[in-house]
């Protein structure tokens, strides 16, 4: 593996009640995070190829960890998202190099299909910085019931020369969706939007 990983964190959250109503079966989200060394900490590097390779590894490893934490078949994953927090000796562009060019393909393999854009967020931060990983339906970005987010953090990361990379998946939308719009059963799954 190209990435030098210090830690992995996998979190599953289930919601059983929302606004007094029972959610059966519970809605479930999982996030998998890796704390990795930033190979370009403290210096400006023009070519970010190394971080792009790391992005591909992260899509594969974190995608599989998150899906397996939910214990469902890849096809049953309904939404996904990704995010990164770069320690202070790095550069926001480092997050972009990990997240955007190559992370998506192996993540889509891990969730079987995935026609939609993988929603993302990124920021610079210190140890313990929380980040909200945006979530969207994997095959139809406009599915309104699945717009959501999952807050994650690693208390001791990122240290200045580290990057926290996160992938989140769900097997469900929000607990009580009722704001209309495109529904999951209407998705055609061709253009990734509807």
């Amino acid at each position, binding site marked *: 593996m190209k990435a030098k*990983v*210090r*830690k*992995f*964190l*996998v*979190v*599953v*959250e*289930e*919601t*059983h*009640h*929302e606004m007094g109503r029972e959610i059966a079966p*519970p809605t479930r989200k999982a996030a998998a995070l890796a704390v990795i060394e930033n190979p370009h900490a403290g210096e400006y590097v023009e070519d970010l190829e190394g971080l792009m390779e790391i992005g591909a590894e992260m899509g594969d490893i974190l995608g599989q960890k998150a899906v397996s*934490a939910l214990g469902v078949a890849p096809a049953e994953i309904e939404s996904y998202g990704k995010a990164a927090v770069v320690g202070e000796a790095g550069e926001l562009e480092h997050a972009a190099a990990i997240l955007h060019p190559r992370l998506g393909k192996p993540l889509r393999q891990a969730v079987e299909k995935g026609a939609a854009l993988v929603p993302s967020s990124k920021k610079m931060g210190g140890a313990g910085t*929380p980040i909200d990983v945006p979530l969207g339906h994997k095959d139809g970005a406009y599915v309104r019931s699945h717009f959501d987010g999952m*807050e994650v953090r*690693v*208390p001791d990361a990122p240290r200045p020369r580290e990057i926290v990379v996160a992938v989140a998946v769900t097997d469900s939308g929000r607990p009580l969706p009722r704001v209309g719009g495109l529904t999951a059963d209407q998705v055609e799954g061709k253009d990734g939007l509807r």
Partner: protein
Amino acid sequence: MTVRVRKIQVGVEETLHEGGPVAQTPLRMGYAAAVVENPFAGRYEPNILPFMDDLKPLGLALAGRLLSALGGAADEIEGYGKGAIVGVDGELEHGALWHAPGGYAMRELLGEAKAIVPSSKKVADVGARLDIPITHRTASYVRGHFNAMEVGLADAPWANELIVILVMTTGARVHARAGGLQASEIEGLDGLR
């Protein structure tokens, strides 16, 4: 009294290194947290003990979830801890109701577990984090296993809720080298050494 669960969150963290040599076996630390309604929120209730028994099945369920998230082998669990966060309409004493059901559940599941289960608790607002202390499950004085795990949920506890938490670990700190009693030196009689 019914135990009304709103959320369950289970997390596992693996540490491969912390600036030193990469561990042959990464340290794994896991937690299971349940967000439950506090039946005593907003009033002083003198007799709260019955709720402690009501929490026992939840304790066992959480301990089971946690053990299985850590791979399912009870003999690989070396450290443990527990804690509670009480929402602001509750009382610190309500968090103390978790001591017996939380500790009992982990011992029931792990078998040999002589050491006291270290704990922490506080009353706090939504999004609060709690550092759960961790010690070796057979001998409290094992220095390499003194540790802690920070746990919290972004949207809990509401004012009328409790978060009850269990933590288990598979070993010592990843670069433990501060001396003291070693796990290999445990006598295992009194839960301390």
